[in-house]
């Protein structure tokens, strides 16, 4: 079976020759191809070359476009940070004052970083699209203001200035729809959305239920393709029931601390679940430990056809031992078919 077929089996709840799996090896491609990170994150062709090496090493069932959300903030201005062995970042939020934030319209798609994301998606889809779904990554509309203004300012506005919060979320929704629309047009099979601010570790229950979820529903409902709800760095099972009905969400990617059995109870049969290997944690794991850890997840989900083994949190770190990654793949293969 191809990766595409395995992922479709997981979506439909059908048997497969083995468990579909993927790791967020966006950054790791630069290590495998020996391309300096600045060039890797500037030239879509270099990114494609890196992902070819990822496929050669791991043959994952899903390939990732650049996991580089800061490019979305940099489209509005500000200064990027370029470091060896890390994806680009934003030195500081581009705006100090909320009233300075203005919508970019289609200039968003013409900014160099976002144009790079879209072109990388197009190249990946052209090369791998028929056999492997291409997963793009985009910022949640409820999180974009935090990238533009800083977490503190966005939290303050959310808590104490609902009208201004609504205006900023309108801007962020427009941004989200333009970007995800362009990524789907470029060939992304789905877009993963890390969601920080729809989480009870971050906001109050009242904010989540009255403000955040309605904004997400409005944005997700207009997306032009399927979305994967990414846990965003925190556990999500305890409020999963509130998020499970969001429109446009094809699957949920869980935090390593989330209990997948409990998640299945909340979601019910038939919904796609992904998880929950600790991606950054692999950098500190020996191959045998990674094998055991992944095998335990697979054993827990053995009877669950609607499950894809995937890494959670951010990108797999640059310094991760390739043998540790191969141990993940070996655990998947050893677990055998999905009956």
């Amino acid at each position, binding site marked *: 079976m191809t990766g595409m077929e395995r992922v479709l089996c997981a979506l439909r709840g059908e048997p497969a020759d083995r468990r579909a799996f993927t790791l967020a090896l966006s950054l790791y491609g630069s290590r495998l191809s020996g391309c300096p990170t600045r060039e890797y994150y500037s030239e879509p062709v270099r990114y494609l070359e890196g992902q070819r090496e990822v496929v050669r090493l791991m043959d994952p069932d899903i390939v990732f476009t650049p996991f580089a959300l800061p490019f979305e903030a940099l489209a509005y201005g500000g200064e990027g940070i370029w470091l060896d062995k890390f994806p680009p970042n934003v030195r500081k939020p581009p705006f100090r004052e909320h009233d300075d934030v203005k919508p970019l319209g289609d200039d968003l798609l013409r900014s160099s970083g976002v144009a790079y994301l879209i072109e990388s998606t197009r190249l990946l889809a052209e090369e791998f699209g028929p056999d492997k779904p291409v997963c793009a990554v985009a910022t949640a509309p409820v999180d974009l203001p935090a990238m533009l203004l*800083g977490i503190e300012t966005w939290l303050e506005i959310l808590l104490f200035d609902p009208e201004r919060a609504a205006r900023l979320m309108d801007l962020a929704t427009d941004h989200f729809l333009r970007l995800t629309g362009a990524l789907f047009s470029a060939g992304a099979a789905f877009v993963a959305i890390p969601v920080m601010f729809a989480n009870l*570790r*971050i906001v109050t229950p009242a904010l989540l239920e009255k403000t955040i979820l309605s904004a997400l529903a409005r944005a997700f409902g207009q997306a032009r393709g399927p979305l994967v709800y990414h846990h965003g760095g925190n556990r999500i099972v305890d409020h999963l029931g509130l998020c499970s009905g969001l429109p446009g969400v094809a699957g949920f990617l869980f935090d390593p601390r989330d209990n997948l059995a409990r998640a299945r109870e909340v979601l019910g049969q038939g919904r796609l679940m992904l998880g929950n290997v600790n991606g950054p944690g692999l950098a*500190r794991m020996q191959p045998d430990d990674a094998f055991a850890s992944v095998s335990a997840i697979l054993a827990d989900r053995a009877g669950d056809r609607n499950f894809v083994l995937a890494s959670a949190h951010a990108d797999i770190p640059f310094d991760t031992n390739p043998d540790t990654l191969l141990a993940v793949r070996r655990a998947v293969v050893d677990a055998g078919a999905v009956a």
Partner: protein
Amino acid sequence: MTTMGRRQLRCQELRNVFKSESTHSYDCGGTGMTDEMVTSLEAGRETLYALMLEADREKALAMLLDHADEHGFQSAVSDLLEPVLERAGEAWLLENLSLAQGYVAGKIAEDLLVAAAEKGGDLLLDAKGPVVLGNVEDDYHSLGRKMVAVFLRAAGWKVIDLGNDVAPSQFVDAAVEHGARVIGASAMMLTTAENIRHLRDEIDARKLGGRVRLAVGGAVFKLRPDLMQEVGGDGTASSAIQAPELFERLWAQSIEAEGT
């Protein structure tokens, strides 16, 4: 009218509402409290905690000011605010408190400290320390640092806050100038947390490693518990609310190190 003035006016209205809605009286004495007073204080803490969870900053401040009017700011801090912050810290450890609720707790404490400073009175500000705080070089994520500063001040510490993007030499210069025994360095991401190593080197190069203790914190330290030691920190806290306890411990270590 200033923002603070407007807030206090709204607070006065809220205090009136709160008084009429409340079934508790907040009478309490610093000494010789009756059972009724103790019960009243406990009920007051419950109410304050609930207001904090609901992010009702203005009502919470109104309640604290109401208490301070009758019993003084020191009692408002020690009898109401501090026990509530302690409870919030426990809830944070159990992951039963959100960042927003912790932020509101900080804002409530900050509002009370501003009011106490403006009105004067019995609250012991800057009774401990000083300590130096800042975000490390290249780090501009100020939320955690500001919350730590507020909780430290509420606990009576004098805080020298150097702001964002602070070079190692600036940290150490400030510690030497002000006689601080603890430096608190904040970093949100792994990339910037790595810069704490340079601060450690600077402290050691000036042979201040015994006297000046290094507290480190930020979101990444929660995700990677080993990082505190990797970058050369002497201690960390799992949230801003727990910072006063950490600084007390590091301060004591500094004194002990100098005595040996």
